[in-house]
């Protein structure tokens, strides 16, 4: 295999890994503060991508044609809308069920995911079909020897890294981050220290959902196509990635996301059967990993939840 092809695969793997990571980090954040898994997370991503697309179409129709402006608008609208949606979900569906059995939270977020997915399918114009997503980033490519680096991929990758580093700084260097970590560690102590629990939970859900919105837009820009079912797949993979890395740790989510992408890329290259089976392979890996290491590669300190 020549170097060019190899680097191409690595680049694809990195892009995939970045998207998985953005989703996985959301799962980890929610789990951290509330000890719950929000199964609708993937579908929030879908809604984010579709919100971005709708913004683009809307702005184009009123005559905005500057690409950077469009990109900015798409991102800002998608992020703000999803942050709001995440807060609403937390406030009205997740927090009221805190004292109910964990099963109920699971079911309610699962069903909420279905609601979001079906809303996109039914109420977005022709939402049942895949939608083309505009290329808002420069698509020039730089030739480095045999390797063909597409500029948009490089920008997205850099943006992803910046976001993750930013999130890390937010969590570790700011007062808000301190509060989030305190709530994650011990809710009651955090409350007695004067931290507004509800506000922190809502902010965390807003952050996680905003990351999903970024992931959704990134997904659209990368594949130039979005469809109503993509969030379900990304959600399952992102959740598995979060688990494999060890739920509750940001680094674990990053590790899991890239590991999963690596496995998938290697699987697509190395395994003889057609690429049609790539999703089958991905889900087999999910199940196998859950059988092998249900508590993740970085072991949780307390694993009674498993």
């Amino acid at each position, binding site marked *: 295999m020549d170097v060019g092809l190899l680097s191409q695969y690595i680049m694809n793997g990195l892009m995939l890994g970045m998207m998985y990571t953005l989703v996985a980090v959301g799962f980890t954040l929610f789990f951290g503060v509330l000890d719950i898994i929000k199964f609708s997370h993937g579908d929030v991503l879908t809604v984010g991508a579709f919100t971005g697309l709708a913004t683009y179409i809307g702005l184009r129709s009123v005559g905005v044609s500057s690409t950077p402006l469009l990109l900015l608008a798409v991102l800002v609208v998608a992020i703000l809308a999803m942050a709001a949606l995440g807060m609403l979900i937390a406030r009205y569906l997740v927090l009221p069920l805190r004292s109910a059995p964990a*099963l*109920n939270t699971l079911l309610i977020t*699962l069903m909420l995911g279905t609601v979001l997915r*079906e809303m996109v399918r*039914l109420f977005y114009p022709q939402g049942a079909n895949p939608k083309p997503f505009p290329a808002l980033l420069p698509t020039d490519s730089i030739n480095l020897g045999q390797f063909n680096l597409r500029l948009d991929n490089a920008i997205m990758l850099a943006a992803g890294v910046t976001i993750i580093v930013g999130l890390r700084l937010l969590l570790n260097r700011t007062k808000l981050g301190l509060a989030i970590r305190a709530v994650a560690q011990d809710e009651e102590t955090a409350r007695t220290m004067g931290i507004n629990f509800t506000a922190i939970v809502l902010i965390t859900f807003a952050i996680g959902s905003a990351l999903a919105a970024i992931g959704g837009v990134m997904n659209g820009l990368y594949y130039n196509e979005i469809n109503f079912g993509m969030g379900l797949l990304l959600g*399952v993979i992102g959740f*598995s990635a979060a688990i494999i890395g060890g739920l509750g740790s940001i680094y674990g989510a990053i590790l899991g996301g890239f590991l999963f992408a690596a496995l998938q890329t290697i699987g697509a290259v190395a395994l003889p059967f057609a690429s049609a089976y790539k999703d089958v392979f991905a889900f087999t890996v999910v*199940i196998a990993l*859950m059988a092998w290491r249900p508590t993740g590669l970085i072991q949780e300190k307390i694993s009674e939840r*498993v």
Partner: protein
Amino acid sequence: MPEVKQEPQAPLLPGVVAVALSTAYLIALLAVEKQPLVIGLLAFGIVAVLVAHYMDWLDPVGRSFAEREGVLSAYAVLAACVVAAFFHDNHFVLLLFVTVLLYAVATLGLNIEFGYAGVLNFAGASFFGIGAYTSAVLNTYTAVPHLLVLLIGGTLAALIGSLLLLPVLRTRGHYAALVTIAFALLLKTFLEVNDVLGGPQGMQVKGMSILGWSFNDNFEIGKIEMSFYLNYFVISMLLLCGTFVLVRRLERSWIGLDLDAIRLDETAASCFGLDIARWKITAFVLGNFVIGLAGALFGMVGGFVAPNNYTFADSLIMVSILLLGGIGNPWGVVVATFIVVVLPEKLQTIQEYRFLLYALIVIVVLLFRPEGLLPRPVRRYFPGGRA
């Protein structure tokens, strides 16, 4: 032996009246075609139930069902036969009715896993599909007797389900849910890309025939022409009765008690010497077997299988039935299956929106009535005694 002093048994009458009224209502609902009439009838049904609830007429019904279950079950079977006989020449209604029965069987299987043992399974439709594809393949390529095909369908669903046992047993709650969701997505994608099993177009399934009696031919009793779906009605009804009795007996037996203990508190249950893994495996395998059995028969009834009929959304519909009816209550499952399956067929405007609608209904049920429409009652070991 001296007679134990018993409270007087609850009267049978309220239960019989309830069964008769529901039968009449069901016949009316299935018979009307015009959409305004359907809507009117549905509204009437809802209002009637609410009024009955408000006037406390439902309590005697519940009591007579709780205490005279055997007799009333027989009446319910009779009622189902009456409905089937009323529509003896109507293909569409009978197919719908058979669908309800088989979905009820499958959901009862899910109930064993979900409701008793607490093993989460969000791939119900996948196991249903495994059964259906089994009958498609076996009926097309082999001459295996069709009753045996049903059993093989169930067995295959149980076997393939066993592949998930390790991850399901090693995990709990959300994690186990993830495993089954991944399996549901996996199976659907697999069926779609696999050419041997017909790909996205699916396969035709040959109809059932037992000892030369072809189920797919209309037949006559006396001079009256009967729809061939009546054949399927009979066998589905038998299957449902068998499953219902199995589930009810299971719940009442010490196995059911063990399963409940495991669901409610694994640590406590294992402290009392219950083998958690053993009972979870039993419930998961048995449940999948039942689902596969129903799926195999459903494949033959429908005459056609395709990946799109066995998606994750369909699995969620089964879970919705379970939650709507009341987890763990077989009667609730049957009632909820009627609502969930019949409603979108009669009310065509909501057909397209059914996944959305049921997801919303489940959210509302979970927020406001988490125990479902017919909450599971406490076991009654002594008829007439206090529970």
